[in-house]
């Protein structure tokens, strides 16, 4: 049962990931990325990592994809344009990098350097490991947890300084480079 679910989720993940990079329409690519994130969340659930699975859906498929879609709209991307030397060069570089990563994966599996099948032991109770994660996060890893809020605070202030400082300079129009610091 678990194996069949894993194969299903993995096949969906591979198929949707391929569609992300092969689809001509950038918005459709982004939506296939949502499907890829959801199938990855299913695989996390099979590993009894419920918290990671839910974070995958809430943060990645929810928030990060909104950001991606806004970037696509903001950059005003049209359909994928073929041709041009630098497009061909970029595509060639992508093929080379992908082939290297694939060869590395095959090599690792062939030499049995990859860990292989997962151990069947389940961390924590049957209900899930979110509780244990919480216990660790709020005792042993308390300092990193509190520092996270500072990192988020820096990000909040940073995004306001970058986006808001510019939009007040001139309403709608882009200021000349170097106009504001």
């Amino acid at each position, binding site marked *: 049962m678990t194996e069949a679910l894993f194969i299903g989720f993995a096949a969906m993940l591979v198929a949707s990931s391929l569609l992300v990079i092969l689809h001509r329409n950038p918005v459709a690519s982004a939506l296939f990325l949502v499907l890829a994130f959801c199938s990855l969340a299913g695989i996390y659930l099979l590993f009894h990592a419920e918290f990671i699975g839910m974070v995958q859906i809430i943060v990645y498929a929810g*928030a990060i994809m909104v950001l991606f879609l806004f970037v696509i709209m*903001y950059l*005003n991307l049209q359909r994928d344009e073929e041709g041009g030397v630098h497009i061909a060069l970029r595509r060639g570089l992508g093929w080379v990098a992908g082939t290297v990563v694939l060869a590395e994966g095959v090599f690792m599996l062939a030499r049995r350097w990859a860990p292989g099948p997962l151990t069947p032991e389940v961390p924590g109770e049957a209900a899930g490991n979110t509780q244990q994660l919480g216990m660790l996060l709020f005792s042993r890893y308390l300092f990193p947890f509190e520092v996270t809020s500072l990192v988020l605070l820096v990000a909040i202030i940073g995004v306001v300084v970058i986006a808001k400082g510019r939009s007040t300079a001139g309403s709608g129009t882009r200021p000349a480079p170097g106009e504001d610091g």
Partner: protein
Amino acid sequence: MREYLPVLMFLAVAIAFAAGTIGLSSIIVPRRSNARKMSAYECGVEPVGNARARFSVKFYLVAVLFILFDIEAVFLYPWAVTFRQLGLVGLIEMMVFIVILLIGYLYLLKKRALEWD
């Protein structure tokens, strides 16, 4: 695996409902289209130009802020399930976390970053 049975049932009912209503309406709907039916009425003028216009950077500001507070909310889940064991100490820990982010929220309000001017 058994504990996911309710989730699975919920998912099955949701998919069946969505597919059923869309499928049924596409079967029983009468299709008598004419030029006047397809025209834009009561909801604005005929579209002019390309819909793919450049968007304002303010949308991006909202999206980034959404991610940041979403990540804050993610940390509330492990806190909520361990709330009883952690007790008062956990409450104080979480309050420190939230107050630091509250400073960011007050900064947003002060800078009027959430207003659409």
